[in-house]
């Protein structure tokens, strides 16, 4: 084993930040709180950078965590190409978002609380990524869920925010249940949860396919679908926009929601052995991408458009995973982290400029009033729409090409992805035109540019969004191949260029329609005109929330109220408690008469008791077989 890289510092530094700010933050001045909060992710980022020069993969163990019989879990961290990329994104983008937050949250009362939670999130997220076994990953997995809950409900005075926090937590719980079942199945079948041991055991058994591996893969994917907001568990993510905007950028766009993609990539050796599970992943991914994109077409809240866009882009990543193009999925994960964080932060800057207004119908004309926000947002919009040579152009193209190359079903999914690309371009440019062009439609707002602590991260992320694709174009797969293996089907030559041209054309069509509808006519209702029923279906998000409310939430509440509360709690448990209490009261009422205070009565009872006792001790001797011989021997 080579020398230690001190990987433990990566999660521990934010944890120290969390402890300091969480315990002492309310007494410290804001400058000190900010310094602590910013140094933690910066320190982690530097440790990751230093570690990136070491020979990979590198693993470190900090002793045994759980030992029970033959079951053994180490407290171990693994740094390989996959976790390195994730860590660079998490700590790098995380640091930028911390800087942005200093400006965005400046006048909030819970300033210290906010940064404590944000650091706590980084602690758990880096633990999740570094974990060398599935159980430690699960700890981080649950931890980021907790941080997400705390930050969505950050403004818990608002009922909607508190409810959104609960919704996120509960929906995630369903996914986590699947994850946990997957872990138990792994343990039962392979006796270990260490990723390297699992990979070795599966590799040593080349005939093992389908069956139990399919079950494990599907259970794990349920967990991934919960965390990464895929059908049918995506419903929590749009509501999560109740949290502060930088939180949406960090947790609900760039990092936490990609944990599911990371988990599938990390356990790809299981998915690779199960064609059925892979198909499910690909279909769910493509369906989510299209489904969420259509809802995104008509949303009017700027953050909700981005939320549905995130769900949709996560669908792309799972489509990539599902056609076994894990490196393409991770590539898109990285570029998405750049441009979606930028979109959210720029949206936050827009909201800041509009004085808290999130409804795009009241915006407009910000192009001249917030020029830096406008230009950075423009870069992000171009990037996500797949404008040539910007980041998503490469990553989305890699996923679509892989889907196309994977054959029959893949061609269909490729077409769904292509359609989604057009929709993506449409709703992004719709947002762009509504926000920045025309006249400001709200008369109360006095739009102004944001401070530099917010604009700085925007500029850096804009550079990454534009150029991020060049980091990975062509060599990302080779870089990740030690972890994820090499993809066999590759498109070659002219077909690849046709693919690219089609993807770009799809984006251009979306842009063109948005331009016609929202720039030339600048009428938001245009979209509704041709198909009012379809429009209202989309605007109500396919009534999925209502559907879940009807088939799950309402029956659950009824069950809780009528059965659990009245029958179980009130009648059975309450009745039992009352019965026992009544018994105690009754016996007390009777027995308390003994406590007369009269010493002679106590003595009489004592004597009586002694006599009875004596009788029972002596009776067998007096009346029974063995007679007493006390001193009688003399006679």
């Amino acid at each position, binding site marked *: 084993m080579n020398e230690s890289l001190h990987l433990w510092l990566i999660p521990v530094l934010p944890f120290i930040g969390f402890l300091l700010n969480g315990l002492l933050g309310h007494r410290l001045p804001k400058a000190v709180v900010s310094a602590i909060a910013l140094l933690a992710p910066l320190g982690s980022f530097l440790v990751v950078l230093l570690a990136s020069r070491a020979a990979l993969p590198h693993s470190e163990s900090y002793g045994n965590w759980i030992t029970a019989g033959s079951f053994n879990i180490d407290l171990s961290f693994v740094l390989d190409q996959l976790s390195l990329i994730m860590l660079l994104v998490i700590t790098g983008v995380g640091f930028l978002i911390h800087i942005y937050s200093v400006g965005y949250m400046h006048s909030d009362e819970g300033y210290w609380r906010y940064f404590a939670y944000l650091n706590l999130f980084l602690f758990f997220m880096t633990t999740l990524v570094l974990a060398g076994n599935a159980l430690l990953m699960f700890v981080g997995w649950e931890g980021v869920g907790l941080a997400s809950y705390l930050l969505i409900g950050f403004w818990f005075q608002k009922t909607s925010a508190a409810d959104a926090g609960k919704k996120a937590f509960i929906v995630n719980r369903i996914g986590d249940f699947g994850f946990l079942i997957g872990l138990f199945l792994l343990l039962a079948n392979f006796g270990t949860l260490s990723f390297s041991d699992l990979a070795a055991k599966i590799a040593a058994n080349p005939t093992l396919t389908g069956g139990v591996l399919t079950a494990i893969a599907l259970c794990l994917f349920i967990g991934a679908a919960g965390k990464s907001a895929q059908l049918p568990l995506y419903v929590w993510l749009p509501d999560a926009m109740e949290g502060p905007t930088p939180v949406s950028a960090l947790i609900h766009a760039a990092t936490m929601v990609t944990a599911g993609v990371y988990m599938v990539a990390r356990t790809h050796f299981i998915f690779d052995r199960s064609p059925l599970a892979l198909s499910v992943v690909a279909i769910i991914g493509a369906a989510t991408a299209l489904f969420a994109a259509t809802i995104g077409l008509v949303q009017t809240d700027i953050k909700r458009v981005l939320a549905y866009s995130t769900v949709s882009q996560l669908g792309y990543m799972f489509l990539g995973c599902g056609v076994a193009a894990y490196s393409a999925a991770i590539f898109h994960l990285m570029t998405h982290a750049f441009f979606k964080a930028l979109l959210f932060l720029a949206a936050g800057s827009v909201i800041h400029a509009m004085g808290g207004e999130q409804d795009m119908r009241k915006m407009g004309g910000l192009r001249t009033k917030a020029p830096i926000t406008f230009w950075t947002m423009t870069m992000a919009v171009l990037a996500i729409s797949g404008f040539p040579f910007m980041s998503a152009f490469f990553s989305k193209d890699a996923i679509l090409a892989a889907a196309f190359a994977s054959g029959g079903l893949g061609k269909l999914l490729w077409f769904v992805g292509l359609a989604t690309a057009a929709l993506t371009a449409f709703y992004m440019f719709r947002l762009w035109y509504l926000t920045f062009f025309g006249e400001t439609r709200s008369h109360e707002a006095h739009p102004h540019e944001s401070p530099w602590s917010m604009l700085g991260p925007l500029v850096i992320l804009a550079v990454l969004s534009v150029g991020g694709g060049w980091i990975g174009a062509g060599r990302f797969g080779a870089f990740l191949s030690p972890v994820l293996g090499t993809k066999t089907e590759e498109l070659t030559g002219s077909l690849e260029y046709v693919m690219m041209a089609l993807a770009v054309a799809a984006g251009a069509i979306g842009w063109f329609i948005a331009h016609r509808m929202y720039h030339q006519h600048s009428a938001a209702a245009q979209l509704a005109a041709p198909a009012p029923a379809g429009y209202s279906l989309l605007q109500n998000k396919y009534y999925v929330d209502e559907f879940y409310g009807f088939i799950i939430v309402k029956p659950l509440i009824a069950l809780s109220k009528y059965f659990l509360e009245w029958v179980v709690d009130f009648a059975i448990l309450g009745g039992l408690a009352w019965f026992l209490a009544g018994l105690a009261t009754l016996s007390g009422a009777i027995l308390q008469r003994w406590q007369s*205070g009269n010493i*002679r009565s106590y003595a009489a009872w004592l*004597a009586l008791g002694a006599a009875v006792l004596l009788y029972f001790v002596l009776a067998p001797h007096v009346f029974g077989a063995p007679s007493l011989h006390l001193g009688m021997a003399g006679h």
Partner: protein
Amino acid sequence: MQIVSQEVPLVWYLLLSAVLFCLGVVGFLIKRNLITVFMSIELMLNAVNLSFVTFAHQWHEVKGQIFVFFVMVVAAAEAAVGLAIIIAVFRARATLAVDRIDLMKL
């Protein structure tokens, strides 16, 4: 030892002990004066002591006699504490009738 068993049988000692103990019990139960009650307790203790020495003698065991010393020591201590309590009760309530010292009830 032989002399005892020859001249006075063991059972007599035990009968005496039993009679004394029962007198103590009866005195405890029927007497109203606290000091008399207290003396009845002493009587019961000494009745027990008597049976202890009797058995000790019978079985040639020194343990019984040691036990008697313990009982005496405890009885002496109890007498000191008990009499002090009786004096305190009398000062507080100007009576020693046990039936009237009955505040510790529900």
